């Protein structure tokens, strides 16, 4: 029943997509398409929540006579799918709401409107799919529609390049998953997930499947070193789509990974966790360092997606480690942390992209070096963006902190693990996690400070206007969710329990029963956290302080020029920029990670030109992994290209040699 509701929503979205092609050029199309998407997403969201709260023993299923003819298209909404459907449709609904306003400024609506609902439909289908063919079909369909959205502003050369790299990487990922499913399904082509579950893969196959799943799902999620497309493609799309791609699509990729490793593949081995943990840790740290070096607001956010995917994978890796060692309660904790972070990231990353979209609408700028002082012109957007920044920086009392806190709690359980490899790796990963959390805060001080605070650096920033009410509504919704999930985390954790139970067979303690709405992962004596009280305490003490000070202190207030140690300079270019803000960090980490080099060009004495400083950053992942691949392809393509220009006689010689070779084989070997 619920599965079919969701499928109807998907069908509706697809119909809207088709209709949108026809009406895209009319002005009425924008509200119609986004309104319909909003409605469909809400219905699908309700259905997904129903699935999450419903009876986990009997998940809703549906079989359509589509896809592979002798199998049909299987769909199923179990707890895991229901949770991810919730994330998908929540993001979808908010993005549609946001786009009701944002979409009006779109310069090429005919390149966005048809693909947006199709993209939503694709993401829903991936999560619903219950056989390998439908899964991959939807997976690639999702990539394709998002590619089309990335290419919406195709005249910008960078976007075309982004689209290219994106789709090639997406295809690479799909092929990896295709091979993985090929192994899981076996020679007979038992492609339904039920059949795959029933027929567990042998250990050797499991290694291959895991590797392929990491490559396939990881490339979509943005796991280092498969992340290169992400910071290019996500920012290139219109902002509501960026929000969906970063906030939601990467989660669908995480879903794929969980589905394969924790559900289809059978009991994990402990060293799988090593790989996942190491990748997760590196991803988290490298993602945030990249973000720090960035001055394009949307690209900065995209790099933070990479970081957060790393955090999620750390949680998943811990869950695998515990599960492999039979410590199911700790696995439940780690998996909860990962899934909670999935939810959180989808919320605050969407919020932040909405905010960056609002800035883009108001100023036409993505480059932070050209912004500044927006807090005066766009107070609401600024406030929402600030909430997002606090949340993503994992600061209490917002939601980002809760999931990171849970991850830390899970890490602290890992001395229970017997394997030495894990014993050494887990603390190191913990350090990386702590480091990336701290760096994330730094990065968002930079992002928020440079963009919204200070003085406007350009006229467009000085003349920005607050955005429309739909955008504000969407942002407020997610800002409120950030707060709610932060102060009432127990509700979310309890909501996740059916998923956790279905995957690891154990659950965390019931949180709703804990007094004062605290969350207690294991026992109160070991650790607990109460977001609500922290929030109330901060609120109360701040109010108290304000009250007391207003009672006793002087109320006098005078506006004057900034002090700035007595030498104020009115030029906005004297402010710290994104690059200068990051300079200390660049000195500390950049020289190793990015081979950062600074060159200063001093004009000769007497020359009145200003001195210039250049910073060279190198993307080592690109240089080590991707550039050689591109080089090999180019080299081979160049080398064999001469075969296009042979004479007929030489072509005949090829035929002749092929004939002789085959005859020799026949004559000699057979």
């Amino acid at each position, binding site marked *: 029943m619920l599965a079919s509701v969701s499928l109807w929503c998907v069908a509706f979205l697809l119909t809207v997509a088709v209709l949108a092609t026809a009406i895209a050029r009319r002005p009425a199309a924008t509200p119609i398409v986004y309104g319909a998407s909003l409605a469909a997403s809400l219905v699908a969201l309700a259905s997904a929540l129903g699935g999450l709260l419903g009876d986990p023993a009997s998940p809703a299923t549906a079989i359509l006579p589509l896809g592979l003819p002798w199998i049909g298209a299987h769909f199923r909404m179990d707890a895991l799918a229901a949770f991810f459907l919730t994330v998908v449709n929540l993001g979808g609904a908010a993005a549609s709401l946001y786009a009701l306003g944002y979409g009006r400024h779109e310069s090429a609506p005919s390149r966005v409107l048809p693909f947006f609902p199709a993209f939503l439909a694709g993401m829903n289908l991936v999560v619903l799919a219950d056989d390998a063919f439908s899964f991959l079909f939807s997976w690639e369909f999702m990539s394709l529609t998002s590619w089309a959205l990335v290419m919406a502003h195709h005249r910008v050369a960078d976007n075309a390049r982004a689209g290219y790299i994106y789709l090639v990487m997406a295809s690479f990922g799909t092929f990896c998953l295709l091979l993985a499913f090929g192994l899981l399904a076996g020679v007979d082509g038992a492609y339904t997930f039920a059949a795959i579950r029933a027929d567990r893969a042998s250990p050797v196959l499991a290694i291959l499947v895991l590797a392929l799943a990491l490559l396939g799902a990881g490339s979509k999620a943005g796991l280092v070193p498969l992340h290169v497309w992400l910071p290019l493609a996500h920012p290139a799309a219109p902002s509501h789509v960026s929000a969906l791609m970063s906030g939601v699509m990467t989660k669908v990729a995480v879903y794929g990974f969980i589905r394969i490793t924790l559900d289809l593949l059978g009991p994990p081995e402990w060293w799988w966790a090593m790989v996942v943990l190491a990748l997760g840790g590196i991803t988290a740290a490298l993602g945030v360092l990249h973000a720090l070096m960035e001055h394009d607001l949307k690209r900065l956010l995209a790099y933070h997606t990479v970081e957060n995917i790393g955090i999620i994978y750390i949680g998943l890796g811990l869950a695998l480690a515990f599960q492999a060692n039979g410590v199911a309660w700790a696995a439940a904790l780690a998996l909860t942390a990962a899934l909670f972070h999935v939810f959180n990231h989808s919320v605050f990353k969407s919020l932040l992209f909405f905010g960056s979209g609002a800035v883009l609408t108001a100023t036409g700028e993505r480059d932070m070096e050209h912004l*500044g002082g927006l*807090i*005066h012109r766009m107070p609401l957007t600024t406030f929402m963006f600030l909430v997002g920044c606090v949340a993503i920086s994992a600061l*209490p009392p917002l939601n980002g*902190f809760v999931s990171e*806190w849970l991850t*830390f709690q899970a*890490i*602290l359980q890992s*001395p229970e693990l017997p394997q*030495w490899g894990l*014993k*050494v790796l887990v603390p190191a990963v*913990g*350090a990386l996690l*702590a*480091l990336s959390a*701290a760096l994330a*805060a*730094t990065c*968002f*001080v930079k992002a*928020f400070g440079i963009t919204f*605070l*200070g*003085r406007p650096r350009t006229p467009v920033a000085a003349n920005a206007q607050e955005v429309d009410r739909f955008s504000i509504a969407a942002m407020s919704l997610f800002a409120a969710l950030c707060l709610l999930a932060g102060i009432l985390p127990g509700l979310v954790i309890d909501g996740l329990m059916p998923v956790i139970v279905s995957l690891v067979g154990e659950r965390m303690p019931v949180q709703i029963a804990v007094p004062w709405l*605290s969350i207690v992962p294991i026992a109160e*004596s*070991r*650790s*607990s*956290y*109460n977001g609500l*009280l922290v929030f109330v*305490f*901060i609120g109360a003490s*701040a109010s108290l*302080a304000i009250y007391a*000070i207003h009672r*006793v*202190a*002087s109320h*006098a*207030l*005078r506006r*004057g020029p*900034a*002090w*700035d*140690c007595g030498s104020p*300079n009115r030029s*906005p270019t*004297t*402010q*710290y920029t994104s690059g200068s*803000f990051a*300079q*200390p960090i660049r*000195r*500390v980490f950049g020289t190793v990670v990015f081979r950062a080099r600074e060159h200063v060009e001093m004009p000769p004495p007497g020359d009145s030109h200003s001195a210039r400083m250049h910073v060279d950053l190198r993307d080592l992942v690109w240089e080590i992994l991707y550039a050689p691949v591109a080089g090999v392809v180019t080299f081979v393509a160049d080398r064999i290209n001469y075969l296009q220009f042979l004479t007929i006689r030489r072509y005949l010689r090829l035929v002749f040699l092929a004939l002789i070779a085959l005859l020799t084989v026949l004559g000699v070997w057979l």
Partner: protein
Amino acid sequence: MAVILDFAAQVAQMLVVLLLAPLLTGFVRKIKARLLRRQGPPLIQPYRDLIWLLHKEVVLAENASWLFRVAPYLIFATTWVAAALVPTFGTGLMFSWTADLIAITALLASARFFLALAGMDVGTSFGGIGSSREMMIASLAEPAMMMIVFTLALMAGSTQLSTISGVMLSPEIGLRISLGLALLALIIVAIAENARIPVDNPATHLELTMVHEAMVLEYSGRHLAVLELAASLKLLLYVSLIICIFVPWGLVPTGAGHAGYVIGAAAYAAKLAAGGLLLALFETAIAKMRVFRVPNFLGAALMLGLLGTLLRFISRSL
């Protein structure tokens, strides 16, 4: 009855930290001056400064936004909440379970986050310098702190401060290598977090070397008073933290009588004084570092913390 007593203890703790904080700051200043053979300001000078600031008018930069005005209160509130959750004289704090050590660290991080934003709000170059350097320091100090938390939590089997100090009090904890490493790391972190020499100089206004002072450069009047108080609170918090973890003797356990509280308070005061003395000694004996040597200093803390954690992971007895 016990609940009321716990509640009273909690309220008392909040007030005590608030009142004691400027005193500690003044004490450290006094000692430092004395070590330099100066007379130094009286012990209550910080209180006078605060009152004086409260009565001054606020001169707000033309460009300052609402965030600039809200930030001091937020910073103060988060720091206060964090300080209220660290056991000072007794472990039986009513709301100690609200936030564990990780959350306390994160609360301080929130305070710093807003402070750094406030530094950037007016759009001056000094504010930017301060914020940028502060965040650089934090981005190393925070993971180091987290590693210290890990070491302690693994030893105590809990991240709750009250449980940790309880375990530290118990006889089975002897001298451990990892504890020593953690202590060393925590001291480094505390120095960095409180903008003390050699990382920062709380007394300087020399433009190119300041970090914390650069961020609050544009503040005046009551806003500055609140920020000063928050800074004092933070210093007290760190000293209390070191005390309650590494020298927990004299802490009043839950449910102790009135007499216990008196003894606890006295012990706390003594330990605090000793802490302040040591800090002053250290600050006098050492020179300020160049800003770009600070990462190495903090990196050392991070490595020590990580080493401590690793040792705990590998062996229960180290």
